[in-house]
């Protein structure tokens, strides 16, 4: 099976701090890949490098078979990729429909297709009644929905989703989960980071765990779980155990 995402010794330094340390990712096409890690582990830095938002200090990146460090190949790869970036990529002063029109035109989509898909996406994600508002007036959850709509609009082959469920209500969360499940079922690939392990457990077929910038585990969900829950396995693999955490005796003491 060919790889949708492949990295070799991908590294990123910020001054003396090594945020991502020589990771070798291998995400097969048609899989739903959950990229997990504690806060500050390097998940968002990795996803930024994979999508071309951040230059790696060293290493190689191939997305859909294209070398992302080659500007021409990177542009070609971006034609087939949708992204929800960590801090989103919205223009404050555009409405949802204007933003989707802009994104569609950047992908050289026909006007009627943009209109039709925008209408459907805005309706599905519950933004159709808010379309006159500017992005700056949106709540965080609404911004996430708009970013998801923009990522899906060009019907990409690969989706990068950095915390897509953060701030999104339960109903929309369900809609998005179904939508993403269908997206992968048709043979496309999704690369997801999330702190909600239940969602990862429900959606993902493969999981990678990054701790302190190093990729500690990468396998199918079943192989990672080894019969246990993902939460327990994640805590074990992340090197922390709730039982070892120091206690706040003053908080537990009777009043």
């Amino acid at each position: 099976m060919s790889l949708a995402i492949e990295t070799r010794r991908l590294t990123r330094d910020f001054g003396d701090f090594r945020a991502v340390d020589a990771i070798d990712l291998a995400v097969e096409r048609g899989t739903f890949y959950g990229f997990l890690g504690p806060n500050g582990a390097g998940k968002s830095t990795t996803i930024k490098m994979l999508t071309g938002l951040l230059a790696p200090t060293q290493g190689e990146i191939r997305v859909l078979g294209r070398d992302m460090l080659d500007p021409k190949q990177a542009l070609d790869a971006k034609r087939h990729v949708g992204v929800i970036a960590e801090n989103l990529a919205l223009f404050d002063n555009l409405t949802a429909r204007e933003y989707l029109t802009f994104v569609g035109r950047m992908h050289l989509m026909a006007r009627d297709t943009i209109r039709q898909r925008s209408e459907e996406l805005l309706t599905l994600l519950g933004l159709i009644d808010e379309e006159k508002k500017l992005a700056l007036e949106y709540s965080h959850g609404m911004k996430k929905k708009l970013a998801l709509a923009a990522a899906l609009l060009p019907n990409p082959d690969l989706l990068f989703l950095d915390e897509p469920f953060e701030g999104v209500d339960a109903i929309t969360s369900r809609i998005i989960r179904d939508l993403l499940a269908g997206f992968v079922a048709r043979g496309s690939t999704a690369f997801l980071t999330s702190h909600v392990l239940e969602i990862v457990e429900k959606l993902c077929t493969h999981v990678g765990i990054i701790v302190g910038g190093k990729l500690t585990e990468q396998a199918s969900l079943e192989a990672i779980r080894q019969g246990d829950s993902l939460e327990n396995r994640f805590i074990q693999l992340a090197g922390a155990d709730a039982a070892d955490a120091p206690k706040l005796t003053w908080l537990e003491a009777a009043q």
Partner: protein
Amino acid sequence: MTREHLLAFLWLRWRLRVNQFRKAGPVNAFFFIAFSIFALFAAVGLLVAGLLVGLLVMPRASPAVQLLVWDGVIVVFLFFWSIGLLTDIQRAEGLALDKVLHLPVSPSGAFLINYLSSLSSLTLIALIPGMVGLILGQVFAGSLYMLLALPLLVAFILMVTAVTYQFQGWLASLMTNPRRRRTVIVLVTASFILLTQLPNLLNIARPWDDGRRDELNRVNERRNSNQADVNAKQITPEEYLRRSKEIDKEFGDRRQEQSQRKWEQVKRTASFVSLVLPPGWLALGVSGLSSGSVVPALLGTLGLGLIGAFSLRRAYRTTIRLYTGEFTGQGQCAPTKSSPPTDPNRLRLAEWRLPWVSEHASAVAVAAFRSLIRAPESKMALVAPVILLVVLGGASVSAKQEPPAVIRPLMAFGAGAMMVIICGAQLLGNQFGYDRAGFRAFVLSPVSRREILLGKNLAVAPIGLGLALAMWLLVGIVYPMRIDHYPATIAQVVCAYLVFCMLGNALSIVAPIPMAAGSMQPAQVKLVPVLLQMLFLMLLPLAMIPVLLPFGIEVLLAEFAGVRGVPVSLGLSLIVLVVVVFVYRAVLTWEGNWLAAKEQTVLEVVTSKGE
């Protein structure tokens, strides 16, 4: 409210200020420290100067002069106070009470402490000692009544600070709505620019110069006529001298009479204004004390104190309403009801396809233009040209002089180019700084970076080039030119815009500055980008030299070869325009590749601090 609460609040305010300057960078911190030291020196200097003037000069001044001096002091104080206030409003909020009211501290206590800690402003530190010195100087000179001016001054400060505090609270309640917040910031910035231009506008209007220039012109006409008579030997030299003395005497008498009349008028106006406007009660009170009347001072103290107390009470109520969630910004946004069905055939602005450019460049241009016309920063960028229009227009009207025909095309070009520079310096010289998170969309897009730059340049054109052409038209109407100079100067203005775009693109790539959302203030000031921006503005006139060559060649041909009436400038300007368009296309490709290589660095700068 306990002492611990008070200390915690003071510490919080201090910490917020320190962190704000740390975030703004070392340059900002340096200027702030230098400015603070200057303010402290100014405070000591003004205290000493006030004491000396109060001791040596004021005791000899009439009550009317005292009134005018204090009115002047109040105007200066309010001018600087307003500038400080507007700067504060444009800045991110220092300490919003709703962030602390969930803590175990009473709202009234928090409000009072916040108000008291807001008094540590540079204007108060620098100017109040001068006012105190002026009062104490008169007290030391023997006027014990003047001691009553001290509580009057305290009441005045209470009134000004309390009304300001109430105003800030009202603005804060308005700004709970994000859209309205941006409008408020635009209006505040416009007020700031207008206020700083006030002395300039007054100098242009010169209300004190009423009729003096006409009078002088009439006298000069009589003098010239007298001189012509003596030159033509129609009158004897003795008669000439007699008439000259007569003219001078009449002029002198009239001037004296006018001055007297004006002085009386000024006194009446000052008394009336001081009576009607509460800040003037300080001047009225001090003036009364200098003539031995204590009633105005006592009434002024009472009145100013009551206004201060009332304003504080209103501000407190606004704070409580904010606290209780009466102003949430919800429900004040754009209507959320379903929009009427849109005509499927109607072409929306975001869908416009511009002629002669690619789909990508069109998409970027219309999206960026749509964003620009809604963004407060572009509205603020438009304020400066409007002010410029008023100032230059006023200056030209008051000058009453006709410029020579030869320089009129230069004036028309200069006016247009200046508009391009003023509008574009911010919007073109730091294009990605205003995109903030939006720049990520460009980086993620599968589009040649050349097309992004072209789209960006096209987006600013209706604003920068549009205003430039409006200014060009205005100058062309006020100072008519030869008919061929109109298209020639248009071509030159368009060339200037293209040159400006090339330089602006380069500057946006090499020296991006992160901008705080909804403002024209950098989120972080770094020395190198700021220096590069300054260098860019300094070198800009040099880049304009090729654009002005046609005009220069036409002038030289007319002066040295006698070639007049031939549209040399028009022909050459069109050639230069064609050349500049070709150069622009080539440079744009090169700049696009440059942006592709640097876009991640630019993204890091514009998003890391600007979000």
